[in-house]
């Protein structure tokens, strides 16, 4: 127990060092350039303390509970003993053999995104700004589906060994085409959702999965092929969020048409 408390204390200190530059910039500009008192300064400071302590608890909890098990799992699922049966070695890598890996990638991509705090922050803001038109959970689920598909495709790419840039360029083309058809109001938010999905929860688990795969598959190198999953996870949500908006617009239009005709 005391070990846990000590760990919490150290992580809180780490978080403070991470946040220090941000606080210095904000208050530096506030006092030297804006030169006006901060409204509700006390409340803001308490809010910062909440954020710091909250993040520290969050990180320690993840390190205690989910990361060790999740990383171990990523490693075990990619082991040749699990995939081909104990003691067997495959001469040729068959992409179908890794079906549990893809399923794990999809499931872990979806579920860690739902728990991601920065996505929640953006969803709260988008809900507020759009006066409730964009649902907090609707946006989060749309993003999570994007990440799930992205990580799934990313693992498939590592197994097959196809070049990363083909997938990414294809993704860019889809994004550009969608941009011209999607409702205007969603576009900036959709672009943003690519960057917010991958932080505290997703990155460590996904990195473990990528490295595990790249080290165990013959002919792949961990340093060269282990990367790229995060890139998929930040591209696919853009597509899925725009698709979500297009779908809801399309459904509304159909409903209106039915009402007009009926």
């Amino acid at each position, binding site marked *: 127990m005391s070990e846990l408390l000590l760990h*919490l204390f150290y992580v809180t200190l780490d978080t403070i060092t991470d946040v220090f530059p941000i606080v210095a910039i904000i208050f530096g500009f506030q006092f030297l350039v804006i030169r006006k008192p901060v409204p509700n300064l006390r409340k803001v400071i308490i809010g910062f303390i909440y954020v710091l302590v*909250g993040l520290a608890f969050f990180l320690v909890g993840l390190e*205690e*509970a989910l990361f060790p098990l999740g990383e171990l*799992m990523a490693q075990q699922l990619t082991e040749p003993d699990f995939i081909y049966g104990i003691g067997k070695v495959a001469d040729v890598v068959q992409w179908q053999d890794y079906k549990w890996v893809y399923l794990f990638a999809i499931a872990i991509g979806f579920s860690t995104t739902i728990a991601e705090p920065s996505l929640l922050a953006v969803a709260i803001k988008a809900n507020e700004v759009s006066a409730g038109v964009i649902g907090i959970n609707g946006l989060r689920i749309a993003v999570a589906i994007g990440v799930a598909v992205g990580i799934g495709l990313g693992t498939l790419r590592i197994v097959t060994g196809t070049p990363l840039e083909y997938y990414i360029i294809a993704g860019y083309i889809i994004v550009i085409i969608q941009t011209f058809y999607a409702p205007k109001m969603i576009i900036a938010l959709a672009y943003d959702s690519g*960057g*917010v999905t991958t932080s505290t929860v997703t990155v460590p688990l996904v990195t473990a999965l990528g490295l595990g795969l790249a080290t165990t598959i013959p002919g792949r190198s961990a*340093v060269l092929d282990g990367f790229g999953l995060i890139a998929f996870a930040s591209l696919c949500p853009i597509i899925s969020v725009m698709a979500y908006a297009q779908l809801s617009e399309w459904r509304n239009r159909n409903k209106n048409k039915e009402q007009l005709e009926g």
Partner: protein
Amino acid sequence: MKQHVNQIFRSLWNSARDLLPVILVIAFFQIFVLQKPIPNMGQLFVGTLLVVIGLNLFIKGLETGLFPIGENMAYAFARKGSVFWLMAFAFSLGFGTTIAEPALIAVADKAAEVAAIGGVIENTEPARSSYASGLRLTVAFSVGLAIVVGVLRILKGWPIHYLIIAGYAGVVVMTFFAPKEIIGIAYDSGGVTTSTITVPLVTALGVGLASSIKGRNPMLDGFGLIAFASLTPIIFVMGYGMLI
């Protein structure tokens, strides 16, 4: 009092619900696919409890601290009317939050390792660490620049997709010229630069600016800063790989 306690329980329950999918996924794979028992149930329970409490405190702090300060500063800069200071603030915010980002430090070290194996730099400790810190500076600079361009876009009301498409074109062009080893890291670096504290602050800044400038719509113009911050590092990291 009773109402207060109820409220705390409700928000704790909400966070627990957010975490439920991860727990279910891990339990399912452990028990049914790998067919192993779940180790350290006690530790797992304590850890999950900490995550739930932490998520709750974070959201509370977001609403009382990060969102209001971000928006207040946006209003104050809009009222002050000095574009120069607003740009200086935008750059410092992007640069300052990125240079200390732990995920970026990890990626930069990995990149140095790749470069050393690929023979781009000498495989010695000082060569690797100077490569890694050069890369961190490059990425931090690119994020600072991204926030500046993003804020400028909000001020001028430029449509976001032209800038993003230009960025994509930049990425594609750079991909053809950049050394093969750097491409994976460059693409990933776009996703890791925006941390849990930067995202709410930058979002509040953008939305605050768009709502305080006449003729801007916070929904159309307020978002998009994060998008720039995740695009420019890709281009700059590939550029760094080409130069060194």
